[in-house]
């Protein structure tokens, strides 16, 4: 998992709780308390999963609640950190089309081809007029998070779109298939 994800999660926990709760979560996830996540480094998915699970446990929130809150923090952080990526897309359709490339950008710090490919393969996007189908394949099973993030992006651009998950790995599918259908996109 690219370090930016963990970093934003840590910032979020610290922001909505306190240092003590954060340390509790870190302890529960077996993450050294002094660990600083770097945005340009890829960390293990397993460690991330533990961290996320520990957060749910300590904060006593559901996956969906966590995804929703995290998505808001993530978008806020990204808008400040990478404004160009948002400026270069004139609507949410264009942004979500380049989202896999942006995601892969974080993985390019991994010199090892095998690991890099594993990250690059997480997202594939099929493009249609006013519609995209995102194929998501990851042991992290964060299709819910993707949908919340996508919704935040759509809200940011003030577009109208319906997000539907037609296939899900959690339901035994070989991948998650998320359809985003826009209506009335500005030319």
């Amino acid at each position, binding site marked *: 998992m690219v370090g930016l994800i963990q970093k934003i999660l840590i910032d979020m926990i610290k922001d909505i709780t306190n240092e003590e709760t954060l340390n509790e979560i870190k302890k529960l996830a077996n993450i050294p308390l002094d660990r600083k996540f770097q945005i*340009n480094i890829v960390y293990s998915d397993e460690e991330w999963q533990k961290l996320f699970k520990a957060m749910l446990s300590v904060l006593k929130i559901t996956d969906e609640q966590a995804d929703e809150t995290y998505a808001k923090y993530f978008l806020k952080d990204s808008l400040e950190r990478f404004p160009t990526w948002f400026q270069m897309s004139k609507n949410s359709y264009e942004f979500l089309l380049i989202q896999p490339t942006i995601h892969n950008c974080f993985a390019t*710090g*991994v010199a090892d081809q095998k690991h890099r490919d594993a990250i690059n393969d997480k997202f594939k996007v099929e493009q249609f007029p006013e519609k995209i189908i995102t194929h998501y394949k990851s042991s992290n099973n964060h299709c819910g998070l993707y949908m919340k993030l996508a919704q935040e992006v759509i809200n940011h651009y003030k577009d109208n779109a319906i997000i539907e998950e037609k296939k899900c790995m959690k339901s035994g599918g070989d991948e998650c298939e998320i359809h985003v259908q826009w209506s009335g996109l500005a030319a």
Partner: protein
Amino acid sequence: MNQLNEYNNFRQEIERIADQLCLAVKGTFDFSVEATTSDQIIQKLCMLMNFTIDAARRSLSEMNIQNSKLTELDKLKSDFMANVSHELRTPLTLILGPLEGLISDKDSIPLAHQDNLFRIHRNAYRLYGLVNDLLDFAKLEAGKYILSEEVIDLNRHIKDIVDDAQGLAGERKLSLTFTPFPDLPLMMLDRKIIDKITFNLLSNALKFTPAGGHINVQLLRDCDCVDIIVTDTGIGIPTEQISKLFERFYQVNSSSTRTHEGTGIGLAMINQFTKLMDGKIVVASEEGKGSKFKICIPFKAVPENKKNQPEEKYKEKISSFKVSLSKMEMKSESKYTDIEKLNIKGDLPLILLADDNPDVRSYIVSLIQDSYEIIEVENGKLALEAIYKFSPQVILSDVMMPEMNGFELTAKIKSDPKVKNIPIILITAKAGKEAVVDSFQVGADDYLSKPFSAEELKARIGAALRNRQDYLKIEELNIQLNKTINELSNSKSYLESSNKELEEEIELRKILEEKNSKLNSELVIAARHAGMADIAASVLHNIGNALNSVTTSTTFIGQRILTSKTSNLIEISKLLDQHESDMAAFITNDPQGQRIPKYITKLAEISKIDKEYLTAEINNVQKGITHIKEIINKQNSLSKVLGVNNAIIVPNLIEDALILNKTIYSNINISIKRDFNPIKEVVNDRVKLLQILVNLIKNGIESILEKNPEHKEIILSIREKNNTHFDIQLSDNGVGIEKENLEKIFSFRFTTKKEGHGFGLHSSAISIQDMGGNLSVTSDGLGKGATFSITLPYQPSKKEDRKNE
């Protein structure tokens, strides 16, 4: 202090990143930039650098894969070319060998087959040359060409090649010279390569130098090299194309209109051969002035052990050259057709054949000459000229031709209505769908793919010819049809013209009618005014007469009063007053007094007579005034209702008309007879009818006065004509009307009276028409009186009705 440390740390981190980026010079991009700093900006920078490096790495990887595939394909292609060329050589050898045996004894070949056999031989040789070139080229490409050096006297060798080409140069009206390098020693060279280089350069010079030009082949030697220089005064090469000359398959003019055939590998092969000998090529050229190709070959001295070895394979060289030359010999046969000198017999359907390859032309001609008359031309331009001159039935054209290609020719033909219906069959080297699409897209009627069979050629020409003949039949019918249409069109034009004239005449008549109508309206108004004048005149006349009577009476009354004796009564009264005191004595005694009683008696008698006279005259005055009053009343009633329909009691209207004329006839003894029969109620313009009646009565009176018969009579009658109309007749026994004037009597300005204005009867007639009726006259002639008849409807027509709306 902390800030300084941070700054130094920051710099160190940047330097570390820069050091890592140095790996990029390897060009493999197989690295990534690492940064362990907690500075998020540097982290972001590293991440994006890595993204860029990764993009370059992926592009490089993809390019390598593509390159690898292309190299593999190129190798496969070269192998394929080599294999195919090699495989082709065997059957070609088996064609050429027996063929040469056959044609070596020309006399033994039947005349009918001679042309075909020599054509086969020529083209088999040409194919052999092309196959050899391809094979050499494939070998060079694959790096498999191995130099085979031998001892060569280059001066003699090049001279032989130049000598062999002299015939061709002569045919092309070119001067070809060779400038040897004196005392050039024998040297080690690959004879085949030298042959190919020299031939290619020389054949190019022969191809691209116009008649009258000069070609020189020269040998030069400096210490390390020998230069083969071929200079020509040809068309030259555009500067921007010189650098591409030695690229594979490149041709300066690659279009389908290129003047010369060729595969585009000749100069590329020279280049590769030269490189194989560690030599180099230098080209100098100026468009329109000529070119100079210099091949610099390292001088290789003959080893001692081979110095006495005789030259080998010379014979092979010659035959190899001849094979190559055969390409050009074919072209040498190609002499441009002079269209102006061509004659057509006209016995057979005429076919135009355009192809720059004389062998193809002669082959096609040999196939169809029994059935068709054929015009042969070498390019599209000449073909177009011939088409306009001879109007062939079918055009057969190659696609790739100099000056104008088959596509351009087709497009020109199909865009000109005069010739676009001549079927054109394109002969194309392309096959399959490509040939069909290309041919039909430019508008060709049919196409033939090379190689084609004689049967297919004949069948396609036959079909095209039938189409042409069908078209001509249709065209003939069209001409006839057009002729008929033209005739009809002419008739139509005539009719239209006549119609137009009629329409113009109608229009003119309408205008005249309008003018007439306007004039009539003006006349009617004038007539009405005239009528009114008549009425006014009659009114004034009547009033004048009455006034005269009144004046006369009042004059008489005045005179009578002036001469009246009643004034004497005053004198008698004064005298009696004077004798009031002695009245009795005065009357009885005085003589003056004695006459008074008698005088008073006489005066009373006179006064009685005066009274009677004055009473009569006053009655006359009263009558005159009453008559004036009556006339004025009538006139008032007329002036108020002009132009309005209303109920008319016709007898009363006649009486009114008579009253208005009374003064004229009252002093004349004219008998007015009335024959008034009962009729239905009449509705019409009362005033207008009254005017007419006044006029007619007045005319009748005047007519009677003019004749002045002893018994003067006017008869007025009213009677029903039919259910819808009635008549009013006025007959007089006046001067009558001459027969010839009867028709003119109602004409404008026609009058028989000395002081007449010709308006009265004319306006009366028009007014009656206006009222929906008719005014007519009959007369037995001059002096026999006349009868005017008014026929009017009881009710006005709709037109008349509108007056009331």
